[in-house]
């Protein structure tokens, strides 16, 4: 019989196969909402943390259960606490939820294009998030606030389906208390005790204070929300070139091999997920591209 090399997971030299991952273990997990949780991961071998840029994502592999693209939701200045916020919707994300502290999982990445924070310097920045779309925007907010003086007005517009779906509640409360950040939150459907805005997130655009001509906008959420938000921002006078959107497609490889993430000529894994709006505007207007 052939002897197949068996390598302790996490101690092998970096594989040359871009589809192979590094070994991590679950450090902590906490519930954000009824269906969404945040996990913090640590490299199994205690190796140096891998740096990432806000907007990038990792592929997370759960033993035998599947692999899914999940954005990094933590602070880019603290990459050792590798943080992901996950909505449990199907088999792989639910098996992530079942992982216990100390258990191993595979991580490869970070992949994808980042939010253009450097290019936005000197501008007002409007961050628009829908639902779980706040997760990939949170690293951008951390970074914007780290370098607060580099930017003009900073606005966060956040919409969820109902008040129980609001993520990062404590953090949002802290942010709302800041004078150098305008945070507006809306829900599609109000429930008892909700006294805030009701309506889709694009309706908040007219309520926020920023100078459209000097504004960079970052949008992530369901595709329909992205479309309407970008149109509303354009209408208010934001230059389309300064609008950035993060798109979602089925992904199997994240490295341009599997073809699943195609959006017209674009590979969302390789060319995105963050795109400048003019690059995708035409395609977003066509159904089922």
């Amino acid at each position, binding site marked *: 019989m*052939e002897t*197949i*090399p*068996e*390598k*302790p*997971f*996490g101690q*092998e030299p970096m*594989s*040359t*196969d*871009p*589809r*192979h991952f590094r*070994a991590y*273990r679950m450090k902590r997990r906490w519930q954000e909402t009824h269906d969404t949780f945040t996990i913090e991961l640590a490299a*199994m071998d205690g190796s140096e943390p891998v740096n990432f840029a806000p907007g990038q994502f990792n592929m997370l*592999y759960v*033993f*035998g*259960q*599947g*692999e899914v693209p999940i954005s990094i939701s933590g602070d880019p200045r603290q990459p050792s606490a590798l943080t992901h916020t996950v909505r449990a*919707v*199907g088999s792989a994300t639910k098996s992530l939820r079942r992982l*216990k502290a*100390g*258990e*191993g999982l595979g991580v490869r990445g970070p992949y994808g294009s980042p939010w253009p924070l450097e290019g936005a310097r000197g501008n007002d920045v409007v961050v628009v998030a829908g639902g779980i779309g706040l997760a990939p925007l949170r690293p951008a907010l951390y970074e914007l606030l780290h370098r607060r003086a580099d930017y003009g007005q900073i606005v966060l517009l956040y919409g969820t389906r109902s008040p129980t779906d609001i993520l990062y509640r404590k953090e949002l409360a802290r942010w709302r208390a800041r004078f150098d950040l305008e945070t507006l939150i809306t829900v599609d459907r109000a429930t008892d005790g909700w006294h805030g805005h009701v309506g889709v997130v694009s309706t908040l655009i007219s309520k926020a204070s920023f100078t459209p001509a000097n504004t960079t906008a970052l949008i992530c959420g369901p595709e329909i929300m992205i479309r309407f938000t970008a149109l509303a921002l354009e209408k208010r006078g934001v230059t389309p070139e300064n609008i950035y959107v993060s798109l*979602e*497609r*089925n992904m*199997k*490889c994240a*490295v*341009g*091999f*599997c*073809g*699943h993430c*195609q959006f*017209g*000529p674009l*590979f969302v894994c*390789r060319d995105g997920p963050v795109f400048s709006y003019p690059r995708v505007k035409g395609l977003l207007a*066509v*159904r*089922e*591209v």
Partner: protein
Amino acid sequence: MKSLVIERTDLEKLFSTLVGRGYRLIGPTLREAAIVYGEIKTVNDLPIGWTDGQAAGQYRLQRRGDAALFGYNLGPHSWKKENLPPSLRLFSAERRDQSFVIIEEPADELPMAFIGARSCELHAISIQDRVLMQGPFVDPTYARRRNQTLVIAVNCGQAGGTCFCVSMKSGPQATQGFDIALTEVLDGHRHYFLTEVGTTRGAEILNDVPHRAARDVEKAAAQRIVDRTAATMGRKLYTGGLKEFLYSAYENPHWDDVAARCLSCANCTMVCPTCFCTTVEDVTDLSGAHAERWQKWDSCFTADFSYIHGGSVRSSTKSRYRQWLTHKLATWMDQFSTPGCVGCGRCITWCPTGIDITQEVVSLRERQPGRKEQSDGEP
């Protein structure tokens, strides 16, 4: 390029030389009423005296009146099944304590020698090379196979009923991507192969195979054969401005018409030599202690392909056919600086309802809203 001649009677020596050097020969052979690529050992395994009649939705083996070895065009298989296997285990994993270990796959056994690859297929291979080994990331399994595989090309002695390599500038004469290229010449009582050497590896192999320099008449005879093939293509596709046209044709009414005929069966993508899409399946055994990851061919015609939470992005057949054709002839160019179609005609032949990519393009052009009258696809 210097031209040589190998007599038909000496061709066996080429095969045995390759086998002697440790190559696994993959070539055309008769199986299940078609000419497919499989493991072969000798010249006698070739489909001697057979050809393939092809039309939209039709493939039929036929007897030739001679004993040609390569007197057919293309079967349902392409070399992608060797370079990018339909099903491939990427790794196994075993549980250990709270975590697991990864067991890598052993490297492949013998290097392969492809026997009888056609020009369009060489182009298809170099297109897949761009996708899987010439971008920012390299697929190591694919790259290993490609680097160690020897390629013996055959120039087509006839055009198939669904071929349009001339339109796609990918044939019928092999110009790149081979170690050795043969043109089979049957001339009265003579049967020989005009031979061209593409690489030093190919030249080295020929040291062990009887050959001589080609005479001018032999070169001319081989050239006439390829020229005749080029002049008798079964199909043509006018590619002028095609990319720009397709980018403007997302809302063309003809997509609904194709959708009414397309079964979304994915045959066209399986037989296509350039289609590279794959999926992965993660499985565990019953004990849950052993896991494997498999890579499998996938198709943009399935519902799962574009599934994201809440539903498929492309739920209609119309959107899937549009994705496929637009990818082949337009978006591929922006992705990889080449079209994703080499004009092999397989998708036409093997479509159960005979949908014809060349004809669909003509119809799309005709039905484009606002098009100028009288353009039948050609200027």
